[in-house]
């Protein structure tokens, strides 16, 4: 697969000396205190007690951790169409504040990103607004209606990162097979929202004891796992490559393991909310616990954590899905599915999995930086020579989600009101400073 060209607003290459941070980058074999010198947007040198050359800003990072910045392959920027909920500027600002150096936008906008002109205009917009390098995934089928393929070769030539009907499954096995056949021509991955509509029916939450108690229609786990099994079989048969989005059920993990044993080329992602919350969060009928796929049970959550550890789940994706307040302030059954997640992903997972001892920090860093690989975006590295993609985090800082508002235009965060431990202070994305926490920037000057 050819390397992917991402878009961002004009930026100035960074010249920084990050002093005193504890650097964690498992891929580069780094885990210890060392200075990081960034020159002209690239990691120039690592070492103890480095001197600051002239024109280089010194960032006092004592007590902080320096990590390779994160990549999110699954973001809804709501542009074009619902710029009141999110736009390229606000969405990438939220991503930078969450420690991300690159994101991929999903095509379920209005209009759908299903033709080269729409994709080109979005890319143009990103070149004037995006705070961090941003790519766009185009639709598999026209209008995401599931019947006719988009002009995938032209879209790929116009810079589509991959193809997805996210938000909706590709219902027809025949259409999915044709997309996999066509993949030989356009060479980009198919990212799949896996769900059988005839099993999900009118469901609004996980089918189980909680849905029985609440009298809500359930979405059974097999709605997801049967489609994953189907598409893995098709991908194996056609020699294609698929990426399974937002894995939520333990049955799906089993299907992925089996497919890999058979040699299927399949990658997958899981979201922070599925890794940290269960359908217990729906008990209060809080609409910020409503998303698709739904929050499932503790057994599912544990299966996802184990799969994240083992690598069956390759990466973390937020499925950042902004919705307006009036849409979420409705009875649970009427409220739209989806939650925001860019600004809280690292802090929530650090609090919920690393501090609890369920996941090593190094593994979390690997999974949060791996999201671009299925799409031809290499994982960021802090090794000398690499483009500077790093974030500085304070692993001891506690903060209340939403307490000081959000960078995102929307506030429908599944972790709203929770106190999390771990705060991103600064993000360097694609060689340029993309985010600095205000208090941290002031501290650096003093």
């Amino acid at each position, binding site marked *: 697969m050819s390397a992917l060209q991402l878009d961002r607003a004009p930026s100035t290459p960074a010249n920084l000396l990050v002093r005193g941070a504890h650097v964690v980058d498992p891929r580069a074999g780094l885990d210890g205190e060392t200075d990081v010198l960034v020159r002209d947007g690239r990691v120039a040198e690592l070492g103890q007690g480095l001197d600051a050359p002239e024109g280089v800003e010194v960032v006092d990072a004592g007590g902080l951790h320096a990590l390779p910045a994160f990549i999110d392959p699954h973001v809804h920027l709501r542009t074009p169409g619902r710029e009141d909920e999110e736009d390229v500027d606000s969405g990438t600002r939220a991503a930078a504040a969450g420690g991300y150096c690159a994101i991929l936008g999903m095509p379920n906008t209005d209009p759908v990103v299903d033709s080269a002109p729409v994709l080109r205009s979005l890319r143009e917009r990103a070149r004037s607004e995006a705070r961090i390098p941003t790519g766009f995934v185009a639709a598999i089928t026209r209008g995401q209606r599931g019947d006719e393929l988009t002009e995938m070769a032209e879209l790929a030539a116009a810079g589509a990162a991959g193809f997805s009907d996210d938000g909706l499954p590709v219902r027809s096995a025949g259409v999915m097979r044709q997309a996999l056949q066509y993949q030989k021509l356009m060479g980009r991955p198919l990212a799949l929202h896996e769900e059988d509509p005839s099993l999900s029916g009118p469901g609004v939450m996980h089918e189980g004891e909680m849905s029985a*108690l609440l009298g809500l229609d359930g979405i059974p786990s097999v709605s997801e796992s049967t489609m994953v099994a189907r598409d893995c079989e098709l991908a194996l048969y056609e020699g294609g490559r698929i990426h399974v989005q937002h894995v939520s059920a333990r049955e799906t993990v089993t299907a992925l393991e089996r497919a890999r044993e058979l040699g299927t080329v399949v990658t997958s992602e899981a979201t922070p909310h599925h890794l940290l919350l269960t359908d217990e969060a729906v008990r209060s009928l809080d609409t910020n616990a409503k998303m698709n796929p739904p929050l499932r049970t503790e057994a599912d959550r544990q299966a996802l954590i184990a799969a994240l550890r083992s690598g069956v789940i390759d990466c973390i994706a937020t499925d950042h899905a902004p919705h307006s307040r009036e849409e979420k302030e409705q009875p649970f059954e009427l409220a739209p599915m989806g939650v925001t997640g860019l600004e809280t992903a690292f802090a929530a997972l650090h609090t919920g999995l690393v501090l609890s001892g369920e996941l090593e920090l190094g593994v979390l860093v690997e999974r949060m930086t791996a999201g671009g690989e299925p799409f031809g975006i290499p994982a960021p590295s802090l090794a000398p020579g690499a483009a500077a993609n790093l974030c500085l985090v304070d692993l001891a800082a506690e903060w209340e989600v939403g307490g000081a508002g959000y960078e995102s235009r929307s506030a429908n965060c599944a972790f709203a009101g929770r106190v999390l431990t771990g705060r991103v202070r600064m993000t360097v994305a694609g060689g340029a400073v993309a985010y600095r926490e205000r208090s941290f920037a002031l501290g650096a000057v003093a």
Partner: protein
Amino acid sequence: MRRHLLSVDDVSREDIERILGRAESFAEVSGREIKKVPTLRGRTVINLFYEASTRTSSSFELAAKRLSADLVSVKSSGSSVEKGESLKDTVQTLSAYDPAAIVIRSPHAGAAALVARWTPASVINAGDGKHEHPTQALLDLYTLRRRVGSLEGLSVWIVGDVLHSRVARSGILAFTRMGCDVTVCGPPTLIPRGIESLGCEVRYTLDGLGEADVVYALRMQHERMKGNFVPSLREYAAQYQIDGRRLGAAQLLMHPGPVNRGVELSAEVIDSPQALITEQVESGVVVRMAVLYELLAGRGAPAAVPAPDETIAPQPA
């Protein structure tokens, strides 16, 4: 007892005993020529109904009037709901009239709990989607207790479309809370997965029906046919209809109404002396009087409407 009645979970066994006892004393008032008491004089009750209802809405109206409350009934048709006003705006508008209670019926689960976040009034759930219908459960308990005395140890079979039934959900919680053993029975397509966690047994045939002291039949809605939940009403009736052959002489029969004659119940059992169906309707008024009394009597004037920001305070997920 809490400020609202949103779920059977909001009332303890002691609360239930007290409400049923008070309903008994209101029943005595209902036997008089003048059926009114002055308890809620000067207080306002708003009935906000987003769904068609005969029994529940009229019995709440009568209950409020017999307690001398001022009553406003708002139905979704003919109101600004039809103009697209959101539930939140409607509730905040009605709250400006300073009601003591809002009685809400909605096709959506959790609507009553949402209303309770947006109004300083006491909120009574008169049915929210397929979730709960707590006053129905209370009047069922009241009706049954009037007939048999103690509910402890009774075997109650709830038969039919449990999946789509708020009456079933509130009933399971309420009957078990009062010491009954509850069994739900119906076609596997209409029994929700995980319902045992509410504390009931699950059966798919009427084979063991003989063990029941009380058979509580649910309404089989015609619109369920299109969802392919049962192949035909004929097949449903053949498998699950409570008729003269299946209902034992010592068993009592209940139904929340309206009945589909010849579907879930045969005509002979509806009109039999074992049926408590008419008594259930009668009980509706006094039990709802007791609920209004429980929530409103003795409580001072409500606080001012909270500031908009307070009403939407984020809840921990």
